[in-house]
């Protein structure tokens, strides 16, 4: 899922300077799971913003609403009857959600309460780590299910590099060397043959931004009358 982290409060305060009526919009999907922008986190943030305003003698009202997701128009539509009353919207969604909200309610300033980090998994309560770079050409079949584009800091396709250090990466001694992991995994699976071939340079055209994808089931098809 998408993993995000709430911005430090002073950054959010700086964005809200001069605004009085604030609506915090939470998201009940990815960012709720990683405890950054779900209903509970929105409640916490609202409490903090109210307390800060009161301590500094600033007039401020903070209301809260959490919708299922901010990346689907149907859920954003639910905000239509509220949005007009507020000076500013603070979205606790991921970058995609903030933008979609801003697009939908383009006469209101929409601010991001989160920093979107990566596509990742939960290692345990409270810790998430990146697994996928969305590179559009998955080669996990050839690397034993370990992604060199993501786990290798240098995204090498023919690794490891000379910086590999007892299975750890030279960039961060806490991080594992992707290619040592790949080697060990394929060794365990008895498929080291997959590493014999030289991988060709990555096709970065597949990752051109901004990406756009239409499902085959929704293509226009010619029909005969």
């Amino acid at each position: 899922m998408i993993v995000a982290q709430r911005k430090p409060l002073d950054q959010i305060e700086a964005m809200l300077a001069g605004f009085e009526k604030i609506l915090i919009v939470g998201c009940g999907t990815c960012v709720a799971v990683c405890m950054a922008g779900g209903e509970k986190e929105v409640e916490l943030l609202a409490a903090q913003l109210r307390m800060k305003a009161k301590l500094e003698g600033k007039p401020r009202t903070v209301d809260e609403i959490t919708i299922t997701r901010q990346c689907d128009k149907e859920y954003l539509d639910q905000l239509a009857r509220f949005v007009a009353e507020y000076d500013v919207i603070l979205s606790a969604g991921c970058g995609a959600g903030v933008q979609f909200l801003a697009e939908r309610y383009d006469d209101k300033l929409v601010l991001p309460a989160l920093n979107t980090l990566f596509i990742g998994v939960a290692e345990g309560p409270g810790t998430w780590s990146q697994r996928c770079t969305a590179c559009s050409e998955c080669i996990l079949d050839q690397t034993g299910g370990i992604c060199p584009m993501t786990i290798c800091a240098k995204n090498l396709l023919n690794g490891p590099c000379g910086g590999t250090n007892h299975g750890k990466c030279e960039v961060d001694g806490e991080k594992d060397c992707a290619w040592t992991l790949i080697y060990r995994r394929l060794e365990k699976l008895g498929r080291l043959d997959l590493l014999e071939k030289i991988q060709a340079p990555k096709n970065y055209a597949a990752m051109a931004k901004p990406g756009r994808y239409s499902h085959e089931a929704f293509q226009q098809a010619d029909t005969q009358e």
Partner: protein
Amino acid sequence: MVAAFPESFVRKNFVVTAEVGPPKGTDIAQLIHHIELLKDKVDGLNVTDNQSSVMRISSLAICRVILDHGGEPILQLTCRDRNRLALQSELLSAWVLGIKSVLCLTGDYVSVGDHPQAKPVFDLDSVQLLQTVALLNQGKDLSGNDLSGKTDFFAGAVVTPEADPIEPQMLKFRKKLAAGARFIQTQAIYDLDKFREFMARVPRDGVKIMAGIVLLTSAGMAKYMNKNVPGIFVPDHLIQELSQAEKGKAIEVGIRIAGRMIRELRDKKLCDGVHVMAIGKEDRVPDILKAAQ
């Protein structure tokens, strides 16, 4: 006409190269002094490429400076800072400027250098870069286009004989050879027995292997490298030897150690040559070579 460096493997039994690092700035007076000092004592002079991710003059420019002073340059090219267009362009530029040998490296990550917020490129890795050199040598670029004039680079790569685990390293070594590496300069070695074992398991056909020799200037430096540099292991007895030196004279012991290793590598025919690295102490390289006689 074959360049002096590749040709030296034909003429001699044991080839010696050294290394210079470009300055961080435009003042190349010191650099020129080192070039003049070393150019006639070695068969090739590597020029590092933003080594350790610290921004410096490019290897390309300094290789040309070496040629201007009558030396034999070896271009070091890393994948960290340039995408495949820039890499191919740099290679064509090098050829046109008279540089005929290139060492293809992945490159350190940006975080270890002085611009840690830079965008790391790594569009290609060292194996793909070697393949690219091979393509340019055939008059083609990576997209399959024909070139108006081709290169004939003598391409090399790096290997770490004491990598742990060693198997992924050996796998990559074989890929580098398959991709066109014709010479290897290894990461620094200090244990000749381990090196001998390493040399026994590597393919020797079609490739010249040069052992990397890094000058130790003190016991402290040796311990630092053991702790911080992957793949380098200075054995205890050498650290002992260094720490027993008189105050301020540890570097002389380091020179003696380096000379001793080179002598043994050469006399016992353990490899095809040595690559001497004395970063910050380039002016002592002649002493190392003398100690090796």
